[in-house]
C-alpha cells in the first residue's frame, strides 16, 4: 500500500518539518518484516558522498540497533550541545493484539458480518501501528541525515553501511542497567538543573519553559490518546449497531424493513466517517503531541548535559589551581556547548511552531471535511426516510 506509507511519511515529516531535501544522503526504510515481537527494518541509503563505498546500499537493522545509535550519539561528548533526535519508541503491537484476542473470544456473540468488520478494523489498526513504527524509525534516521553535524558521525555512517549484524544486541542486558542508571541520573539531573543558579538569561528562560512545557505536553498527549481511543470506541459501536439493525431488518417484513435498512446503512457509513475522524485526530493531534513530547525530552537532555558541563567546569575551577588549563578547556567546552545549544533550541522552537500550525490547520480542515460529509450523508438519509 504505497499510498498509505506515503501518508504516514508525510504525516511524520510534517511533525519534524525541517527535514531538508539534501540529495547527497537519502535514507528510507522501504521494507520491514515483523517477526513475533521483533521488527526487521531494511535501511536503504542512496548517496553521493565519497565516505561511503557504494552510491546505494541496503542493510537489515532492528529496533535495538537504532537505540544503540541514539545512545552512542548521546554519549558522544562533542554532541553535548546538540539536540539529539529522540530515539524511536519500541514497536508495540500489544494493544491491537490484545483487542484481536478479545474479538476472538467474543466471536460467538456477533454476526459473521459484524465479526468480519471488526476484524478488518483491527487489522487496519495493526497495520497502522506497524507502518507508524517503520516511519518513526525512518524519521529518526532522516533527521540525523539532514543534520549538518550529526550526518557526519562515524557511527551513523557505520549504521547505514555495515552490512553485517551490528551485534549490539548482545549488550542488551547491560542496557537495562544503563536505562535504570540513566533514569536515576535523570532524576539527579532534574535536581541539578533546578538547583543550579543559571547565569544565562536565555537558558534560564528555556529551562523554565521546557520543564513546564514538558510536563504539560506529556499530560496533553495522554489525554489526547484517551480521547481518540474513546472516539474509536464510538465508531466501533456503530459497527455493532449497524450489524444488528441489519439482521433485524432481514427478519422484518413490514414497511419498517426499508427504514431499518436505511438506518443500518447510515450507521455503516457513519462509522467509516467517525473512524476516520478518530484516526485523523490520532494522526494530526496525538502523534504531533507524542513526537514533541519526545523532542522536548531531547531538548531537555541538552540542558542537562549543559548543566553537567557547567557543574564540572565550576568544580574544576574550585580545585586549588590544579590545572588552570584544564579548567579553561572545560569552560571553553561549556561555552561552545552553550552556543550550539542556543542555536539548536531556537531552531527547535521555530520547528515546533511550524509543525503545530501545519497539523492544527490540517486537522481543522479534516474535521470540517468529515463533518460536512456526515451532514450530507445524514441529510440524504433523512430525506429518503421521510419520503418512504
Amino acid at each position, binding site marked *: 500500500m504505497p499510498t498509505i506509507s506515503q501518508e504516514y511519511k508525510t504525516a511524520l515529516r510534517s511533525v519534524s518539518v525541517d527535514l531538508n531535501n539534501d540529495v547527497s544522503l537519502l535514507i528510507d526504510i522501504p521494507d520491514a518484516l515483523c517477526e513475533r515481537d521483533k521488527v526487521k527494518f531494511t535501511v536503504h541509503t542512496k548517496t553521493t558522498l565519497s565516505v561511503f563505498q557504494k552510491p546505494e546500499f541496503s542493510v537489515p537493522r532492528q529496533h535495538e540497533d537504532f537505540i544503540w545509535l541514539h545512545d552512542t550519539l548521546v554519549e558522544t561528548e562533542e554532541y553535548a550541545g546538540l539536540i539529539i533526535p529522540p530515539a524511536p519508541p519500541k514497536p508495540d503491537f500489544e494493544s491491537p493484539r490484545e483487542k484481536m484476542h478479545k474479538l476472538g473470544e467474543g466471536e460467538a456473540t456477533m454476526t459473521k458480518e459484524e465479526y468480519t468488520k471488526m476484524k478488518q478494523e483491527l487489522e487496519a489498526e495493526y497495520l497502522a501501528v506497524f507502518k507508524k513504527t517503520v516511519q518513526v524509525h525512518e524519521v529518526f534516521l532522516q533527521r540525523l541525515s539532514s543534520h549538518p553535524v550529526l550526518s557526519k558521525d562515524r557511527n551513523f555512517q557505520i549504521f547505514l553501511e555495515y552490512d553485517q549484524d551490528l551485534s549490539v544486541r548482545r549488550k542488551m542486558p547491560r542496557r537495562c542497567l544503563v536505562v535504570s542508571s540513566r533514569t536515576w541520573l535523570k532524576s539527579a539531573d532534574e535536581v541539578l538543573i533546578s538547583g543550579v543558579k543559571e547565569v544565562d538569561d536565555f537558558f534560564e528562560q528555556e529551562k523554565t519553559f521546557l520543564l513546564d512545557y514538558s510536563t504539560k505536553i506529556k499530560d*496533553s498527549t495522554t489525554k489526547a490518546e484517551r480521547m481518540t481511543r474513546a472516539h474509536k470506541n464510538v465508531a466501533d459501536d456503530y459497527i455493532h449497531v449497524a450489524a444488528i439493525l441489519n439482521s433485524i431488518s432481514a427478519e422484518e417484513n413490514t414497511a*419498517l424493513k426499508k427504514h431499518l435498512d436505511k438506518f443500518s446503512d447510515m450507521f455503516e457509513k457513519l462509522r467509516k466517517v467517525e473512524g476516520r475522524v*478518530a484516526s485523523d485526530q490520532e494522526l494530526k493531534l496525538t502523534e504531533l503531541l507524542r513526537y514533541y513530547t519526545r523532542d522536548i525530552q531531547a531538548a531537555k537532555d541538552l540542558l542537562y548535559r549543559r548543566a553537567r558541563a557547567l557543574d564540572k567546569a565550576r568544580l574544576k575551577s574550585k580545585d586549588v589551581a590544579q590545572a588552570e588549563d584544564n579548567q579553561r578547556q572545560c569552560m571553553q567546552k561549556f561555552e561552545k556547548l552553550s552556543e550550539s545549544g542556543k542555536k539548536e533550541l531556537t531552531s527547535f522552537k521555530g520547528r515546533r*511552531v511550524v509543525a503545530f500550525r501545519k497539523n492544527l490547520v490540517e486537522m481543522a480542515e479534516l474535521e470540517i471535511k468529515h463533518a460536512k460529509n*456526515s451532514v450530507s450523508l445524514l441529510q440524504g438519509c433523512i430525506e429518503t426516510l421521510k419520503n*418512504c
Partner: protein
Amino acid sequence: MKMAASSERSPPPFPDAEDQESEPALRDEDSDEGADIFLGTNPLEAMADSTFSASDVLSDLPNDLLGEPPSAVFGDPLSNISKQESTSNPAKQSSKLPSDVPCDIFDPLHGTGMEPKDDGKNASLIDIVINPVTSAKDNLPVDDLLSQPEIDIPAKTKTEQPAELRSEERPKDEPLSVASSKPKKDLFEDSPEDLFSELPKTKAKTKPQMDLFGDSSPDLFMDAKAAADTGPGRNAPADLFSEESVATTTSKSAKSNISANSIVTANSKANGVHSDEEEQDIFAEATVELSLDSPHNNRKTLDTTKPSEPASSLSAAAGSSKAQAKTLEELEEEESEDKFELNISITNPEKVGDGMNAYMAYKVSTQTTLPMFRSKTFTVRRRFSDFLGLYEKLSEKHSQNGYIVPPPPEKSLLGMTKVKVGKDDPSSGEFVERRRASLERYLQRVVCHPSLLQDPDVREFLEREELPRAVNTQALSGAGFLKMINKATDAVSKMTIKMNESDVWFEEKLQEVESEDQQLRKLHAVVDSLVSHRKELSVNTAVFAKSVAMLGSSEDNTALSRALSQLAELEDKIEQLHQEQAGNDFFVFTELLADYIRLLGAVRGSFDQRMKSWQRWQDAQTTLQKKREAEAKLLWANKPDKLQQAKDEIAEWEGKVTQYEREFERVSATVRKEVIRFEKEKARDFKKQIIKYLESLLQSQQQLIKYWEAFLPEAKAIA
C-alpha cells in the same frame, strides 16, 4: 491505515447515486403498501355493493364504514363480510385469471367491487352517512341482503374454494391490518357509527333470522349469553363478531357462515336486551358524533371512490392499482394528520413530601375533542404508582381477551431513592426526566389503543381529580414484573411444543416475536454501550480541553498559545456536543428499544392468553371424551338409571367444548388483530424515532462544522 489513507483522499462518494437508485424502490414500496390498503378497503366496497345491491338505502352502512375503518371492537362484522366477499370474488374470478398471485386477486376484487359503483351507485354516497339514522327504521330488507350473498357465494364457490383457500389466506389478513390500524385514530368517530350500523341489523334481523336458522340458534344464543356474561356489554358484540371472523377464515361452509351470521343477530339481540348503562351512554354519544362528523366522512368516502373509478375501468391492469394505491396512501396520511383528537402530555414532575415517604407527582394534561370527555382540556396530578395501578386494572380486564396492554415503565428503587435523598444530583434529574418521558409514552400508547381508550378506568385516570390510592403495585414492579412476563413466556414455549398449532400464522408470528425480542435486546445492549462510550468520549474531551488550555498557557509563542487556548475552548464545546448526543442516543434510541422490549413482552403475553384458552378447550374436550366413554360403559353395563345423568353431563360438556372453542377462536382473532396493529404502530414509531435520531446527529455535525470553521483561521494565524 486504511482510514488514515482515505482521510486524505476525497470524501466517500455522497450517496447521490444510491438515492436515485432507491427512488424507484420507494415507489415500489408505496405501491405495495397501497395495495394492502387497497385490498383492505376494497373488499369493503365490494361487499358494500354486492351485499346491498338490492337496496340503496342500506348500502350506506358499509360505505361509511369503509371510509372510516371500524374500531377494533366493532370492526369485525365488516371485515368479516368483506372477507366472505373476498373469498368469493376471487373464486369467481379465478377461472378467468389462472395466476393466483395476490396481486391478481386484488384486481379482480377491485374490478368487481367497483363495477356497481360505475353504474351510478355512488351517487348515493353523499347521503350515505346521514342515512343510517333514518334507515334504521326501514331495515327489514337487511336480512335478505345479508343472507342472500352469503348463500349465493358458497353455492358459487363450492368447487373452487378449497383450492383457493391457501392462496387467499394472505390477502385475507391484510384487510384486517388496515382495519385495525386506522381505527387507532379514528375510532372515536367510528365506533358510534358502527353501533349504528349494528342497531338496524339488530332490529331488522332478529325475527327472520331466528326463523330461518332455528335449528342452530339455541347454540348461538347460548354463546351470546356467555359472551354477554363474560365481558361488559360492550365487549360482547366484539367477541362474537370476531368469532364470526374466525368462522369465515376457516371458511367451513355456507352453513357455518350463516350460523355465524345468526350469531351476530342473536348477539345483537342480546345486546339490545342486556344493554347496560354504559352502552346506552355510547349510543347517546353516537348520535352527537354522527351529526358532527358526517360531512367529514362524506368527503373521505368520496375521496376513496374517486380514484377508484378510472382504476376499475382499466380492469386488472397493474398500473391502475398502483395509482390508486398511492392516492389511498395519501388519504391515509391525511387522515392520520387530521386525527389528533387526544393529546396527552406529562409535565412538571414535582417532589411531594420528604424523606422516604416522598414521591414524584406528575401533571397529566389532556387535550381532546372527543365528546366522551367532559371538557376539551383538563389536567390531573398522578404519581407513579397510579400509572402502575392503571396498568394492573387494564391488564386484568383486557389481557385475558388477547389484547396487548402496553406495559408501564419499571419501578426503580435505586433511582427513586436517589431522588428522595439527593437534592440537586444531576443523575436524579436525569432519572426523573427519563421516567417522565417514559410515562408519557406509556400513556400515549394506552390511549392510542381503540379498546383501551374506551375503558372507564382510562377515562377516570385522565379526568378524575382524586384517584383512590393504588395498592399492591409494589409487587408488580421492575425486575419482578419482567420476570413474571418471562416466566409466562417460558411456560408458553413449553406449551407450544404440546400444542399442535393449527394456524401457521401464529406459529410464525410467535417465532418472529421471539427472535425480534432477542435482537432488540442485543441492539439495546449495543446502543447502551454506545451511550456509555460517548459519555466517556465527552469526559475525555473535557479533560483534554483542560490539558490543552494548560499547554497553551505555557506556550511561549503568542500566536500558538492563543491557538491552543482556542483549541481548548473548541474542545469544550465539542464536549458539550458529545454530551448532548449521548443524551439523544439514550432518550431517542435506547428508550425506544427498551419500550419495545417491554411491549414485545406484552405481545408474548397475548400469545400466552391464546394458548391458555386453547388449553382450556382441549381440557374440556378430554373431559367430554371421558364422559362419553363413561356413557358407553353405562350402556354396556346396562344401567339406565345413571344413563340420563351421563347424558346430561355430556350435553353440558359439549356445550362447554363449543363455548371454549369459540372463546379460543375469539382470542385468536383478537391476538391476530392486535399483533397486526402492534406492528403497524411499531413501524410508525420506529420511523419517527429514527428520523428524530438522525436529525439529532445531523444537528451535532452541523454544529461541529461551525466550531471547526471558527477555529481554522486561528490555526492559520499561527506564525
